[in-house]
């Protein structure tokens, strides 16, 4: 297991380096002078000249990369053109909303996805299965923003149960009760992902149910519910755990849309607004942070996977 962990960590390094090169090149792929791009439209020629020197833009590109990488490692992701603040602190401002949103979404995914998936698998072939797995596929086919708009229309505008947009910090007036701002967004974000988890739990449980140890458990007269949970579901959970890396990526993608629909001050909306404002340092910074986070999560998922299923690390 230790050897496997070290191997995986080492394998991460080249991918991470290559990803940083891509993120670095992003600024250079935009037509125009990078210094002028980074400073925005309002910069004077003197400012551009100063930054060109500071960033070493007159140097060969590989030295620029090393310089940039050195800054990144020290936590300096540059300065936002729009906010006139360090990029890292701009990202930090959106982190609370995004992390809370992701946590609540995960809560819904587990709460709905796993029990419905188990139900669908144990009632395999019956109308219950057809309705749940068909319904799951239908939910996976709904555009996130459309669902969000209609949830707002029904539950905020119509019934007035939940606020329709924004999110004051938990440290603001209202405290934990402010979480109600995140209920509709997190449900919106959870719907397509819970649907995928339902399909996945169902498929992997049906796979495991065909194995010998399950037949043995049934043959020795164990209660069907016990077989389903202890023998089938526990083993099926390995495949589900492995899918959580993928779920994270889907969450990030859909959070961009959901945060925009509900005007949440999170990192997802920050990306969209920065793109529309041409605030390239922020775009670059957010992408870098998300890519690193995604890699770390994938690593953790793989290590958990190896821990749950020892066959993996022996290969």
């Amino acid at each position, binding site marked *: 297991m230790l050897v496997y962990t070290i191997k995986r960590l080492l394998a991460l390094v080249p*991918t991470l380096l*290559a990803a940083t090169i891509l993120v670095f090149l992003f600024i250079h792929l935009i037509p125009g002078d990078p210094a002028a791009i980074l400073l925005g439209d309002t910069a004077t020629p003197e400012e551009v000249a100063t930054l060109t020197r500071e960033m070493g833009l007159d140097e060969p590109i590989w030295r620029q990369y090393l310089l940039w990488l050195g800054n990144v490692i020290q936590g300096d992701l540059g300065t936002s053109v729009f906010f006139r603040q360090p990029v890292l602190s701009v990202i930090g401002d959106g982190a609370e909303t995004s992390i809370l949103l992701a946590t609540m979404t995960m809560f819904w995914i587990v709460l709905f996805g796993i029990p419905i998936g188990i139900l669908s698998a144990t009632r395999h072939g019956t109308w219950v299965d057809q309705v749940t797995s068909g319904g799951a596929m*239908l939910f996976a*086919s709904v555009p996130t923003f459309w669902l969000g708009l209609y949830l707002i229309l029904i539950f905020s505008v119509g019934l007035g149960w939940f606020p329709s947009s924004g999110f004051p910090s938990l440290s603001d007036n209202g405290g934990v009760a402010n979480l109600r701002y995140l209920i509709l967004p997190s449900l919106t974000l959870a719907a397509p992902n819970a649907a995928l988890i339902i399909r996945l739990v169902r498929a992997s449980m049906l796979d495991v149910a065909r194995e010998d140890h399950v037949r043995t458990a049934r043959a020795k007269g164990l209660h069907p519910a016990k077989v389903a949970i202890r023998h089938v579901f526990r083993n099926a959970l390995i495949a589900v755990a492995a899918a959580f890396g993928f779920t994270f990526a889907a969450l990030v*993608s859909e959070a961009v*849309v959901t945060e925009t629909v509900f005007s949440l001050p999170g990192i997802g909306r920050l990306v969209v607004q920065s793109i529309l404002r041409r605030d390239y340092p922020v775009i670059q910074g957010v992408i870098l942070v998300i890519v690193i986070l*995604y*890699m770390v999560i994938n690593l953790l998922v793989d290590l958990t996977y190896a821990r749950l299923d020892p066959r993996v690390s022996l290969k």
Partner: protein
Amino acid sequence: MNALKKFHAIFRGRKLATAGLIWLCIVAFAAIAAPLIAPFDPLEIDPVARLSEPGTPYLFGTDHFGRDSFSRAIYGARMAVMIGLGSVFVALGTGGLIGMLSAYFTRLGHVLMRGVDVLMAFPALLLALVLMTLLERSATNTIIVIGIVYATTTARILFGMTLKLKGEVFVDAAICSGAGHGSILFRHILPNLISPLLVQASFIFAFAQLQAAALDFLGLGLPPEVPSWGNMLSEERIYVTRAPWLLIFPGALIILSVFSMNLVGDAMRDSIDPRFKDDIAGV
């Protein structure tokens, strides 16, 4: 005849998937015959009839410019089919080729597949957004961007499947009979991958619809004047309380089409070679 039999076997007893297939045929027909079916010009503005309710002559009502929603929806089918087919073409063409070559030429594969790994470190929509910031808003660029995003998964899937086939006896036989690399790859291996590729294509088509709609919604997809289902939703969302029907029709069209494609893909997946079933990432 053989293809027809196989077709029958896939959809027999699957009412929902058959219904999905029928719906997709309707969408395809609307896309081809859009100018004949649409009662109005999708860009024609009628200021007097702004935000009219569904009825006659405006079947789906009109938007805030007074444009006929029904005609826009019909032309939207055209964009949907174009984006779907285009993305599938780009994804399978580039990703498929990279995957196959990587599995066949092991050394080249080490390099190419690491490149794919790096691109896969970017979540799908984020990668699409970043690429769109570098490009102009247009149908072609939307297709290229969505195609590239799904080229990565396609490359990985085809890599796995080609690797499995490479060790088969028929490949050895082809080598022994003096077949060249190109002939082995495209005349011996590729024909075995056609069915799984079709399944993969159907899922890419479905995902592409959702991604394109999301890009349109964020204002980074098709140019705003193009009548696509995503743009219809994006442009009219501020009128949702006054004219809720403006969002129901395009939304329902997207959902029905994506759902149908997923159903058809799911049905086809059950009929392919069981060795490849787990390789394909679908719903």
